[in-house]
């Protein structure tokens, strides 16, 4: 059972994955993009995207989703990071952005700074490690989704 970290804490997950392929998907379920589109799902649903998706083509369909889950396939695949950055900074997506799939604790600081606010870790131990990892570095040089101003635009030391 994956363990969810949201906003820096281990949290009970209220979302479910819709695997039944029901005619009327339940509120609070995460659908794949085909079902999400077919059912004109929106504010009550989530949608799961692959990192490789061409977001420009589907942004109008997914921008009202309450949650977008981005799947990391293979832990060295950084496409989901660019996708998250685009959703947050270009398309002003304000819903929950969740990292799913191969999410390892040491990767979560990158994800956090690229705009994710929740993370599905394999178990509680990994979730606790991820929280520690995300708190480790005090500051960074460049701007990011979580802190758009680079250091050089802030007050100097």
């Amino acid at each position, binding site marked *: 059972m994956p363990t969810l970290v949201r906003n820096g804490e281990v949290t009970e997950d209220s979302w479910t994955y819709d695997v039944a392929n029901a005619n009327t998907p339940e509120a609070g379920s995460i659908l794949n993009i085909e079902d999400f589109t077919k059912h004109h799902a929106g504010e009550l649903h989530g949608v799961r995207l692959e990192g490789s998706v061409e977001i420009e083509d589907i942004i109008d369909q997914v921008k009202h989703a309450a949650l977008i889950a981005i799947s990391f396939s293979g832990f060295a695949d950084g496409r989901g990071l660019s996708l998250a950055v685009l959703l947050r900074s270009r398309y002003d997506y304000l819903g929950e952005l969740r990292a799913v799939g191969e999410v*390892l604790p040491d990767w979560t600081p990158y994800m956090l700074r690229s705009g994710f606010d929740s993370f599905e870790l394999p178990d509680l131990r990994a979730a606790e490690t991820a929280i520690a990892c995300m708190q*480790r*570095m005090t500051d*960074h*040089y460049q701007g990011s*989704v979580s802190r758009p101003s680079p250091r*050089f635009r802030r007050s100097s*030391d």
Partner: protein
Amino acid sequence: MYRYNQFDQQFVQERVDQYRDQTTRYLAGEISDDAFQQLRLRNGLYIQRLAPMLRIAVPYGTISSPQLKVIAEISRNYDKGYGHLSTRQNIQLNWPELEEVPDILADLAEVGMHAIQTSGSCVRNVTTDHFAGVSADEEVDARPYCELLRQWSTYHPEFDWLPRKFKIALNGSSSDRAATAVHDIGIEARKIPSGDVVLDVYVGGGLGRTPVIGSLIRTGLAERDLLTYVEAILRVYNRYGRRDNKYKARIKILVRAMTPQIFREKVDAEWEHLQDGPGALTDEEILRVKNSFVPPTYTDLNNEESLLGTQRLKNRHFNAWVENNVDAHKQKGYAIVTLSTKTPGVPPGDVTDIQMDAVADWSDKYGYGEIRISHEQNFVLPDVRQSDLLELFVAAEKQALGAANVGLLTDVVCCPGGDYCSLANAKSIPVAEEIQRQFDDYDYLHDLGPLDLNISGCMNACGHHHVGHIGILGVDKKGAEFYQISLGGHAGNNASLGEIIGPSFSRADVTGSIVKILDVYIHSRVQDETFLDCYRRIGMQPFKEGVYANAG
């Protein structure tokens, strides 16, 4: 050189603590081998054939004397008392213990050094002209742009998991000593009549299995746009670069598949969103970083032509050394000295702890405590008084760093090869050594003139064989080590990729083939024509005939 501020220092320290924690969790079995590989690579640690290898970052090849002394000390304490100058201007240790790497990184952090992003699929150490800031032919000092890019790319949240490694090089001189044409991004900095600096951006150059010369995709980029434009390139690459085959994952493959024109359009479309965002550089920041590269307070001196003339007449080794290893400085009375690591019997780029200490001492005594590492794997002392040259030469000879062969055939660029590297198909160091021994006569070497001999032990091309005037590539032929020879490569202005001369040679035949190639050159050249110019004029055929004529 750039001095760390409080934040730079804190950042490096936190990165050491982070890596120590990762190592502890790995050794406790909490991180898998595959996952830890990615983490250790981002801190420069490879697991090699015989032992781990730690690649220490030397940002754009500039290092201070206290820093070099700490590396010498580390090589004594944790290693076998030597290090290796790499073709990306870094320093590698070949024998550290995995368990001790966090301690090594902690020692490095004490003097503002690290191994961040010296390997792995991320933006690597940005490189530039090893004479930046001092050479007489310099138009723009590229180091501030390198430092801005270093800071921007360090622990970048979006671009640390790219399809493959990513190398950026900058040049601001009329001679391109940074090989910008064969980098993922190559940037030429130049001045326009207003006095402002603008940047020309090349993308998709590279060596490896598919050597490509980079394509120019933007001219006249303003300084303030440096980071946002590079960000746009990286985003296009991160999204669309191939991830299914690591040999097709570099940006050059993407640029070629899209065509440079379409790639440029994609980048421009992306950049439109970024150009005026918070990532755009401010005048204050550009000035702050430029101010950390202000020249030292030089003494008002005159050039020492007559003193040097007398000294050179009396000592023919010194004469040869001045001719090959000393370059013109922008400041009157000073010179730039290259200390060659290329002595027969020593793997190119290998330096002992004693040599490192000596170079650090010389940089204090004969300069301002600064040392450079060239991508040709030599040390450079950037600010030597002309009147001190002879004294420095005598000291360098005693430390086996006085070889007068910079830019000549025996100044071989060479990867560690099959002796150390688990990727290599063949050994490279013994091949370099045999050639160095064959051509040990200085007068003959000098007569051959400028000649870049580059040797790689496999097609990953760490020895940059494609851009050697003569390139040697180790290949595996049914389990035996063979060597492919190419001619006509060049890394500087008017860069070109070498062409393969013909069937590969057994190890025993390599040196003999080089002798034959050089015989063809000597008999075909017109007046002072260099090897490269001669090859470009007469083409491959005469060389082919010369090498294979009696081979049966």
